[in-house]
């Protein structure tokens, strides 16, 4: 026959942000570490090789930080003017940076003085990157040009003069050593091929382009500029795939999560948004204290580093998973108990007879199943009743439905009754629990009225409850007054019609007044 049906625990919609896998994932970071830099942090770049150090470009210095260090482990400060765009090579051993005076400098991570200096740009170089073959550097500058440099003999190989405004961002393809893209303030993103002398593709972004990003496969291009983030399909010749407008100020930086499933964008509106790369919907968003200029994610999303205009570098580390294991675990039955008989393969002539799976019942359900009514909610762990009041309320409701609530509440000693009263005081004023708990409170008052005055602890609780009820009644009265005023306003504003369409909330629980006795 039908088995025991567990108590239906009333679920209530959780207000605020919905809890999804993404919110859990992106909230699983420690409180940020703040590091003060000398000026606005224009670029943060992680070394692709362990130990995953990161280079922070701010003002005229480049700091290299270790993963957990709050002090720079190395500083490159040989810049006459502002440095830009310090970027690691794929092997993590070389670093290239542009500067305000038009020079591009190449550093060895272990050395201090620049290995190479590429001179040729006449204005500030805002973007530099290594190509996929590691021996060339691409740079874009405010003199509208894009140049390709050879590292071994520090010579300029090619110059592209196709942009008609400042070139402020760019990146090289990770697969093809000859391909790289640049974004410019002339609203275009262009793809260049080192084998030809002109651009092979150009897309119109519509706003000055602040940041570009190529997907690891090279098939998709993301550009950010103005309030828009746009995704382009390169394989279809630069067709616009989707245009995202989720920020309300200029988007300044883009970044992919390590799995490639999520795209992050930082903006001057002090927010970082996380998009799903399959549906391009925002799945999470972070808030920061100041406008964001740069953003980087470490290997395996272990660290999120965000640089802001006020020179603050915010570093968030992922919470370690191993910590939860530290709790002393109860000894479980051995593994073989669980697999006993499970790995038997069905033979040809065998007939499988399934035993019905035993349903797991909560403690309170086990008590209710056996009609042990007075044990139920006090046996619940006190923290449990605080954390999940809806379970306790559902049990009270179930007892009331069975007509045994008074029996369950009667015959309690001082400690137990104060437990119950504590629970009532905490939850009575919540509108979703009120109808059930008011009933329970009435029963308690009825039962324990004759013995009142015998225990100072319980008396105090009763007084507290009374105060709460009085406060609640006042509050309800105020609400009703407000509602009346609103009704009047609506009545004057309404068009002359015979019907009223009002969506006001329920007027709570006027039954409260009954407990006062």
């Amino acid at each position, binding site marked *: *026959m*039908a*088995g*025991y*049906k*567990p*108590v*239906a625990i*009333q679920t209530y919609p959780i207000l605020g942000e*919905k809890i*999804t*896998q993404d919110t859990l994932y992106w909230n699983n970071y420690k409180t940020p570490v703040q590091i003060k830099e000398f000026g606005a942090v224009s670029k943060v770049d992680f070394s692709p090789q362990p130990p995953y150090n990161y280079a922070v470009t701010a003002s005229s210095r480049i700091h290299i930080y270790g993963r957990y260090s709050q002090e720079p482990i190395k500083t490159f400060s040989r810049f006459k003017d502002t440095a830009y765009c310090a970027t690691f090579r794929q092997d993590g051993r070389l670093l290239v940076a542009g500067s305000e005076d038009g020079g591009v400098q190449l550093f060895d991570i272990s050395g201090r003085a620049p290995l190479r200096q590429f001179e040729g740009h006449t204005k500030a170089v805002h973007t530099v990157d290594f190509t996929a073959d590691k021996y060339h550097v691409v740079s874009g500058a405010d003199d509208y040009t894009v140049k390709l440099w050879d590292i071994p003999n520090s010579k300029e190989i090619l110059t592209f003069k196709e942009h008609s405004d400042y070139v402020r961002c760019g990146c090289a393809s990770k697969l093809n050593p000859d391909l790289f893209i640049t974004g410019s303030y002339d609203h275009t993103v262009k793809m260049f091929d080192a084998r030809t002398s002109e651009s092979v593709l150009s897309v119109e972004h519509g706003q000055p382009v602040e940041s570009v990003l190529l997907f690891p496969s090279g098939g998709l291009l993301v550009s950010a500029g103005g309030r828009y983030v746009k995704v382009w399909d390169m394989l279809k010749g630069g067709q616009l795939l989707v245009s995202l407008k989720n920020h309300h100020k200029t988007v300044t930086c883009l970044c992919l999560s390590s799995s490639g499933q999520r795209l992050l964008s930082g903006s001057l509106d002090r927010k970082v948004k996380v998009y*799903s790369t*399959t*549906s391009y*919907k925002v*799945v999470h968003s972070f808030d920061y204290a100041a406008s964001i200029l740069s953003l980087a994610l470490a290997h395996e999303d272990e660290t999120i580093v965000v640089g802001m205009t006020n020179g603050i570098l915010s570093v968030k580390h992922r919470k370690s998973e191993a910590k939860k294991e530290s709790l002393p675990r109860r000894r479980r039955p051995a593994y073989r108990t669980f697999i006993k008989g499970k790995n038997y393969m069905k033979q040809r002539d065998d*007939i499988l007879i399934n035993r019905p799976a035993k349903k797991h019942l909560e403690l309170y359900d086990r008590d*209710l*199943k056996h009609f042990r009514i007075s044990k139920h909610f006090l046996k619940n762990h006190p923290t449990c009743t605080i954390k999940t009041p809806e379970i306790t309320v559902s049990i009270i409701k*179930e007892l*009331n*439905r*069975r*007509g045994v609530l008074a029996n369950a509440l009667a015959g309690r000693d001082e400690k137990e009754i104060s437990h119950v009263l504590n629970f009532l005081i905490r939850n009575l004023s919540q509108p979703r629990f009120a*109808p059930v708990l008011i*009933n329970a409170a009435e029963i308690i008052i009825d039962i324990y009225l004759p013995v009142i005055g015998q225990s100072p602890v319980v008396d105090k609780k009763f007084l507290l409850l009374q105060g709460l009820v009085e406060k609640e009644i006042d509050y309800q009265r105020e609400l009703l007054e407000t509602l009346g005023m609103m009704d009047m306003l609506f009545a004057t504003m309404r068009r002359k*019609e*015979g*019907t*009223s*369409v*009002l*969506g006001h909330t*329920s007027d709570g629980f006027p*039954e409260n007044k009954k407990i006062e006795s």
Partner: protein
Amino acid sequence: MVEEENIRVVRCGGSELNFRRAVFSADSKYIFCVSGDFVKVYSTVTEECVHILHGHRNLVTGIQLNPNNHLQLYSCSLDGTIKLWDYIDGILIKTFIVGCKLHALFTLAQAEDSVFVIVNKEKPDIFQLVSVKLSKSSSQEVEAKELSFVLDYINQSPKCIAFGNEGVYVAAVREFYLSVYFFKKKTTSRFTLSSSRNKKHAKNNFTCVACHPTEDCIASGHMDGKIRLWRNFYDDKKYTYTCLHWHHDMVMDLAFSVTGTSLLSGGRESVLVEWRDATEKNKEFLPRLGATIEHISVSPAGDLFCTSHSDNKIIIIHRNLEASAVIQGLVKDRSIFTGLMIDPRTKALVLNGKPGHLQFYSLQNDKQLYNLDIIQQEYINDYGLIQIELTKAAFGCFGNWLATVEQRQEKETELELQMKLWMYNKKTQGFILNTKINMPHEDCITALCFCNAEKSEQPTLVTASKDGYFKVWILTDDSDIYKKAVGWTCDFVGSYHKYQATNCCFSEDGSLLAVSFEEIVTIWDSVTWELKCTFCQRAGKIRHLCFGRLTCSKYLLGATENGILCCWNLLSCALEWNAKLNVRVMEPDPNSENIAAISQSSVGSDLFVFKPSEPRPLYIQKGISREEVQWGVFVPRDVPESFTSEAYQWLNRSQFYFLTKSQSLLTFSTKSPEEKLTPTSKQLLAEESLPTTPFYFILGKHRQQQDEKLNETLENELVQLPLTENIPAISELLHTPAHVLPSAAFLCSMFVNSLLLSKETKSAKEIPEDVDMEEEKESEDSDEENDFTEKVQDTSNTGLGEDIIHQLSKSEEKELRKFRKIDYSWIAAL
């Protein structure tokens, strides 16, 4: 055209199965139970109804196996007859006419030629146990007037009489008395319990009695839940009794197991208790049987028990207290709040069933299809508890959605209200909870309706409530990147001067919504939710509201509490006509313009069928029922009838069912109920009711072959009748697993052809041809089919059966057989 009889009101199925104790056959293969005027024979394994024994003209009140012949069954009825049946073939053997109302029947192996019945002769409330001598004459109808009096002043219920210790004595209980009559001594002993004078024992009156099969021990059940075991009752002074107490409420029935080692008891707790060795310590329980246990019976073989429950079901329980089968009739335990509905998918009747459930009941087969658990909470069966009631339900969007409302109101202010929306899942073939809405309204919901327009792109539901609002709920997309989901949200809240909303109804095309607010009907545009117009007749609160259909879709009908039926024209916004009619039930026919209204007067209920376009009714039937009719519904027919007479045309495409206050389900028909059951389906049931277990495959084959050898000799003499079982095409088709069969479309014409009786006679030339082919096949087929071909050859001589058998063309037959061979070859290897 068949000649049309008058339309009569007929009872259609759903009769009680739990009126009396069920009786097992001697081999526990069948179980018998009384069901209205019939006795039903069910298989204990497959739960199928194998036979219905027709014959009594009134309520059957008792059945017992014939102790001298275990293949026969006695039944007695209020019509004053005792009938003897052969239950295997379902044949009436004999009728004994007693002449007075019989209330119960008992048989004793010791008293070979007589049975015991309870009669009331003089006064209406004085019942007697008498023995009736049954004469052995061979005629079909025998007078049996030889009554000899046994006990007087007994209880009417057969539960209060028990024969014990191989018929040495009979025990009867009534109120506070236990009387024992000893057949040999012809004396009666009487034992009295301390009665109501003592307040402690105020509730210990007897409710039932059972006797130990071999010892001198009587068990009696009491109002207060105690079971007393009486011994030494030969002596009026030395008698003793012991008490067993577990039940907290009345003991409804008691039964000893066949050997007498254990005692079974049951009551309102719906727990079957087995007391081992009649001690209080050794008890076993079978809990959560669903409803109050009314009767308990034990099979003569001792391997099965069965309990009859107040929700019209019989549970067959194994000796080790494991429920093995459930025979469920139409649940009629409780009041019907939801009314009658038709599930658009299964065409089943849907109404309140077990507590907290909706039952889906097939009208064609008189069988419950399934129960849908709506409330999903543990049911506590206790007197005086206020239960959560399922108050409203509605189907929408062609059966894709089901909305249900449940409520529980303890005090005036404490209303618990919940609305649930269920989606039909094609994979699981059932309804799955989609949305749960707590407190959809501040007060009780009075009406619930879906917009069932065909073109509507968005499912819409309207609820009307006593709190003065009606709410429109729509299905919205609730999906995000993680999962696809839909959910219902409130779209619009409307009210009219804070009057209570009492009814709501969508027009056929879904463009208009009518909501009645007490006396006023308001019409709303379903696109913009604007109030279009109002109708008010000042004739009391609107009780029913419905739009006309098809050609009459411009009319709106409303029935008021003051007995006025109004019809408004929606185009002119004026009253078209009104009539003085105290309408209790008003139901539109989904297939035509007709509307059926049942009115209530002091004499009885009358039926009016009319079209909204003309106030003159198409059909009137007075006095369809003496009681108040509570609900009615039109059920679309599978096969349309073709009544030509104008008065009956309303029954052509739909059938009207209605439910009276005493919960009998009635309908209108021109045929007798026996004709309704198709004979073929019954035969198939009988054949297919054997389970196909692996043992059947192994052993059944051998037995079949043996049987057939025996039969062969017989068959030579017998003329074979064209039974459906003997047509090879059908048995092939039914025994081949569905997954290896070709598509139904391919088989259909072949199958139907094989069923046709051909008119043309076969020329002499054809027959030898056929035989040739048979022989041909015989050589190529395996020995498995040999017995079959032999049979064909045998019957080809007889002449009558051949027409049918040879209908199936040879190639088709071969093909079918091929499928069978593929699948079952492994069995042959065993």
